[in-house]
């Protein structure tokens, strides 16, 4: 007798077959992983961060390993939203992939324009990355000011009939107030965390290792921060959460679900094991069966706080 469990989840109207997704910027446009796994089995793919125009990104070195993690300063290299819509999206949809388009902008207008373009396509949802510098306001990241987050979410919302997920930056003092602004602005879901700003120095040359001087920290090292933030956000909003940051085992996934994530995203771990996302999906199913849990949603937010 094989027991069956429900793995499907609903992220603010985006129904996905299972809670395992792959994080933006770590999974290319999906194709890169096809040698290693069947990408259509994922809950969803968050594609590489898109901008309105193509971007070349920063100079190398763009990546450096740190203790149980890595810093990156790729600088949003991407072929632009139009290229994505014409050349990458049709391929992914043909494969049966649920596609979440991740967007980044330098102004509110850019976010709106990208949303307008993407809303007419076959992509399944939009993930708005608000960790980008707001050029008009001195380059401070959109995601660090609750009023700006409210304003940008409201405006972008107007251009979208598809689910809108707002991706939060962890580089803030109070993650709850940012999440509340996103919810008030009309977000259907929240994803977190993006990378933590960091730096590494070559003591021989006395120079930063990254050509961009600073970069975003990801990998197992950031997981405790991500878990804490998902937990805090869960207590502040009623919309579903996609949790990410350092996931590399099924235990990590359960931790995220317990503190309130309805789905998770695998990032840096894909670089070390390109088929880890599907391995974790199998392990999650096995965990649920072994623990007599019929529906993965039963775990969400079930942490027993002291």
């Amino acid at each position, binding site marked *: 007798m094989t027991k069956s469990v429900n793995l499907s989840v609903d992220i603010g109207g985006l129904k996905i077959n299972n809670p395992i997704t792959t994080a933006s*910027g770590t999974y290319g446009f999906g194709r890169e992983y096809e040698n290693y796994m069947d990408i259509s089995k994922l809950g969803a793919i968050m594609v*590489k961060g898109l901008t309105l125009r193509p971007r070349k990104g920063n100079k190398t070195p763009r*990546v450096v390993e740190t203790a*149980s993690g890595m810093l990156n300063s*790729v600088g949003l*290299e991407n072929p632009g939203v139009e290229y994505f819509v014409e050349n990458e999206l049709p391929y992914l949809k043909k494969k049966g992939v649920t596609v979440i388009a991740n967007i980044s902008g330098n102004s509110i207008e850019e976010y709106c324009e990208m949303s307008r373009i993407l809303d007419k396509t076959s992509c399944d949802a939009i993930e708005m990355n608000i960790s980008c510098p707001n050029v008009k306001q001195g380059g401070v990241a959109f995601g660090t000011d609750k009023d700006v987050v409210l304003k940008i979410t409201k405006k972008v919302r107007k251009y979208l009939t598809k689910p809108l997920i707002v991706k939060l930056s962890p580089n803030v003092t109070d993650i709850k107030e940012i999440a509340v602004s996103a919810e008030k602005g009309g977000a259907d879901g929240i994803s977190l965390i993006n990378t933590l700003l960091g730096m590494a120095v070559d003591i021989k040359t006395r120079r930063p290792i990254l050509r961009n001087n600073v970069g975003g920290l990801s990998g197992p090292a950031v997981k405790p921060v991500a878990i804490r933030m998902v937990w805090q956000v869960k207590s502040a909003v009623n919309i579903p959460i996609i949790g990410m940051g350092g996931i590399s085992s099924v235990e990590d996934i359960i931790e995220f679900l317990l503190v309130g994530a309805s789905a998770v995203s695998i990032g*840096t771990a894909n670089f*070390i094991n390109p088929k880890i996302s599907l391995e974790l999906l199998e392990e999650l199913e096995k965990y649920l069966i072994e623990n007599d849990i019929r529906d993965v949603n039963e775990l969400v937010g079930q942490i027993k706080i002291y």
Partner: protein
Amino acid sequence: MFMEDCMVKSNERIVDGIYKMELINEKITNQSKAGQFLQIKVNKFDTPLLRRPISINEIKIDESTLVIYYKVVGKGTKIMADIKTGEVINVIGPLGTGFDIDMKNKNIAVVGGGIGIAPLIELCKSLYKDNNVFTYLGFYDIPYLVEEFKKYGNEIEISTVTGAAGKKGFVTGGLEKALLDNKIDIIYACGPNAMLKELKDIAGSLNIKCQLSLEERMACGIGACLGCSIETTDGEMKKVCYDGPVFWSNEVMLND
């Protein structure tokens, strides 16, 4: 390309700080060609987190064996040096595009500096039967792999920075004359960035075609993270792990 467990057939010190490892895996070996590389997980833990890119030194199809040469420079390669025969390590490969080895009746210069000589063995092996291969190798102090190179080429010239063997100085010293004397049609090179830069200039001024194998810090090695992306001379972005590591010298800028 495959992600496979490989059995370590041997792992030995060659000279100070330089090691040779043989890995057994049929799938990866059968697909490999000169200039491609492997992404090696040096242990099963989170530290070090990322895989380490190491070039394929020699492909032994009959024995389903790949040979690599590596220099111990940090955490990852130090752990590699302690791996024992019979242990199993996880490898992704073969990665990258490799050298263009579709050559016949050419005078070929193969130029290597330091541990950058490693991928040039398989290159020479693929070229020496149908072409004249002139090999120029630069070392800091004690040369290694020289006997292997002798098997797969017409002439070999050694230089060392310390003067321990061969000509004293860099491999690029006096190279222009040698390239002209031997009527070189194409140059292949791998080594430190400074050496590649000089070769790019030499190849440009002598108008000789030249392929360079580049190094960049990598996270994935499979074209997904864009950690290794460089701008080419025509303004395109290319991934060293996927579109390279081998590029034509006039394609790349080689900034430091």
